[in-house]
């Protein structure tokens, strides 16, 4: 079934490419950046959002409000660990 999603064709970001070698030297990638890579290089692609910071923040705040108000589909009934407790437990296991 085709997806009716015309917004996907709208440009919402622009891209810039650069390659950083293992010694921190940078060069702008031209053509196919992928084929210019050598072992030890880092290719960085920056997606620049085409919206103002305030607009970006408003969207992310809306997302946060949605996630905070959404219940987990199958929450542990009682005595569940807090995120901090669960992470501390995992970290302790691997810190030993």
């Amino acid at each position, binding site marked *: 079934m085709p997806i009716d*999603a015309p917004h996907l064709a709208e440009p919402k970001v622009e891209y810039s490419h650069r390659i950083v070698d293992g010694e921190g030297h940078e060069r702008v990638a031209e053509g196919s950046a992928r084929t210019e890579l050598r*072992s030890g290089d880092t290719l960085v692609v920056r997606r620049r959002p085409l919206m103002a910071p305030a607009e970006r923040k408003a969207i992310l705040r809306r997302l946060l409000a949605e996630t905070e108000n959404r219940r*987990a589909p199958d929450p542990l009934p009682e005595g*569940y660990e807090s*995120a901090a407790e*669960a992470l501390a437990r995992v970290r302790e296991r691997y810190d030993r």
Partner: protein
Amino acid sequence: MTVTAIVLDCNVFVNWMHPPKELAAKEYSDWVLRQIIEHDLQVWVPYHWDIEVAGVLRGIQKNRAHGYSFEWLNGVGSYLSALDINEGWTLNNIPDILVAAEHFNLSCADTPYFHLAQTIRLPVATLDSGLIAACSRFGVEHFHP
């Protein structure tokens, strides 16, 4: 040290789109998003991040009778556009990926996250126990409360 950027694991983003079963995972993911907003954090992801995110979201959505709704897709697109994302590719060929995966004892999907974080010295926001273990073992910061 003030954190200005993080490497974002696929599953944390997915948890924003769809609540995880474990409340602890939801709380952690919400905390990461709060930090991104409050501190205007830049997000770094490996090259295969979009494919990984799409794969997990497809797994979540594919049982729905009517497929993807316009509203849902539009929401995912908007949230992606609102993040300040850098893609970083530090492992450029298959042998490098295999050697690094073995060295860090990680899957080939997780290895690019960890190698990217180690190369550009950024904390990793993840709930994956393998990545957390690698952080502890190889001196990479795990982004957590």
